């Protein structure tokens, strides 16, 4: 894994509800880039490609377009992305485009396609491969997740797509205020492990490996409680708040967690005892359909 990130690398992850929101945002992303003399690579569904290219109104050939499903087929082996094949296909394309000298902007839907298929492990592995590529080649990568993969009858609408009028390329390193990831996980025993992966990967990108051990424990305990005591899927949000990182697990059970001597006898109580010990601060917020249990850690030695 590369330990230094290319200075020109940038990553933007967003969630969108309606296709029109996405099309508008992606079109703007590419138009902006081409206007500044750059080039683009778009790996998406045919429908999105057609709509975005049309909306961006850029000259033919300035954006290289690829069918996402077809491209996936070139490097997925048995449900997992083969790193060498990924590098030989996507890697080569990106390096070739970036070597022309003009800033390259890439937009990809393959990770979300895998997630939508239910192949969470494959999605996370592909995400990690993109990150490695991004770290070694200077380009900007925009990934969009449909809230369809987050859809839940009772869920509140996801925070709307960020405004694109401001600088849309975020750099790695300390995350800008409010940067974060929000993902929905199925009600399965494997989910705490997947949530752990997402948290560890995010911390790695933010250069906050100092928080890895604590974060892994906290997210596992909160996610496990949601699976065991909640009624369905849970939503993980990990976000940065200055020096602190905030982890939230939202589920649809209104049973409030209890911490206390008596509760310490069972796993639930003991888990929260641990969350309390490891967190800078933590709490519970009731929501319309359930609750959010949150924890903030900052690496400050207590």
């Amino acid at each position, binding site marked *: 894994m590369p330990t230094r990130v290319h200075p020109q690398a940038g990553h933007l992850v967003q969630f969108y509800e309606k296709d029109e929101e996405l099309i508008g945002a992606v079109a703007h992303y590419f138009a902006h880039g081409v206007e500044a003399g750059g080039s683009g690579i778009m790996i998406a569904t045919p429908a999105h490609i057609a709509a975005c290219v049309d909306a961006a109104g850029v000259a033919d050939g300035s954006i290289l377009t690829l069918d996402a499903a077809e491209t996936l087929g070139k490097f997925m082996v048995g449900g997992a992305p083969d790193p060498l094949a990924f590098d030989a296909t996507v890697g080569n394309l990106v390096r070739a485009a970036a070597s022309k000298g003009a800033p390259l902007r890439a937009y990809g839907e393959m990770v979300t396609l895998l997630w939508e298929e239910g192949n969470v492990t494959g999605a996370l592995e592909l995400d990690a491969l993109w990150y490695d590529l991004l770290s070694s080649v200077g380009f900007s990568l925009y990934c969009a997740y449909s809230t369809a993969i987050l859809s839940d009858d009772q869920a509140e609408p996801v925070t709307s797509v960020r405004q694109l009028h401001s600088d849309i390329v975020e750099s790695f390193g300390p995350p800008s205020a409010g940067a974060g990831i929000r993902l929905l996980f199925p009600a399965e025993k494997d989910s*705490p492990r997947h949530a752990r992966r997402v948290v560890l990967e995010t911390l790695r990108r933010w250069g906050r490996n100092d928080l890895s051990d604590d974060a892994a*424990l906290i997210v596992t305990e909160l996610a496990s409680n949601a699976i065991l005591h909640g009624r369905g899927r849970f939503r993980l949000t990990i976000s940065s708040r200055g020096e602190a990182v905030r982890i939230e697990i939202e589920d649809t059970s209104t049973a409030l967690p209890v911490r206390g001597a008596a509760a310490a006898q069972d796993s639930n109580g*003991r888990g929260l005892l*641990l969350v309390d*010990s490891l967190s800078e601060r933590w709490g519970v917020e009731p929501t319309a359909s359930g609750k959010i249990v949150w924890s903030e850690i900052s690496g400050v030695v207590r």
Partner: protein
Amino acid sequence: MTSPRPANPGLSSGILTEASLGALPRGAHVSWVVGDDQRYADVARSLIAQGTAAGEKVFAFGPSGSEVLAALETDAAVAMDPLVEFLNGELGIDAMLGVFRDQDEIARREGYTGLCVVADMDWLRAADPPARAVVQFELLLDRVVHQLGATVVCAYRASSFPSETIRGVQAVHPFPCGEPAPQFQLFDEGGKVWRLTGEVDLAVEDHFAVALDAIAQEDCVIDVAGLEFIDVGGLKTLARACAKAPLRVRGARTSLRRMWKLGCFDRIAPLPEAKSSA
């Protein structure tokens, strides 16, 4: 330092691909999740040939009446249904371990270098053991196999055994092969030491409990240097096992020690740490 497995100076454990069954290190204890009969027959033949070439006395196990087993009769030194031949229809774990020891002694007297067993584990089905019994059997077998330097391949057909059993056995072999790859592994390291690696959480809590229960019968040490993650539930299971038998833990990382304290497990018992032998 515990001594490495006999006759296998390289790899002491690892997740195997099916291709590597074509050149199996001697002394390996493999659990192989197999899809179909033809695949099993082909690979079994290769395994038998490898054992024979290494001077081992090769046993082919399988359920009575199995055509596949009958077909292997000419290749292996002995082809049989152990449930019928040795165990009188019941999975007596001690009896089975005794069989391995006895047969190893006989084989060496006969001039062989040791034992090789290629087992179609369908032979177990007639005894209908629960998953926990199979896991316990395999764990204790691992210790014996290691002591004897025997090469043993246990082939579990995905169609014959519940996924609970398959996942359970994959976790307790040093050389698991096939899907699903285990999330944690617990296996014999020699000298009353068991090695625990991987990640223990909700996904494997039951398998972990069954495995620990199987080894918490006597004074021994669990090496956790390779344990990448364990959650509170897993620690609770570990604490219970440590309370039940004189289990000690070796190689605990700082984070595990911290968790033990913060999770108040030290109110049950202090983390029973073994002195690290260099």
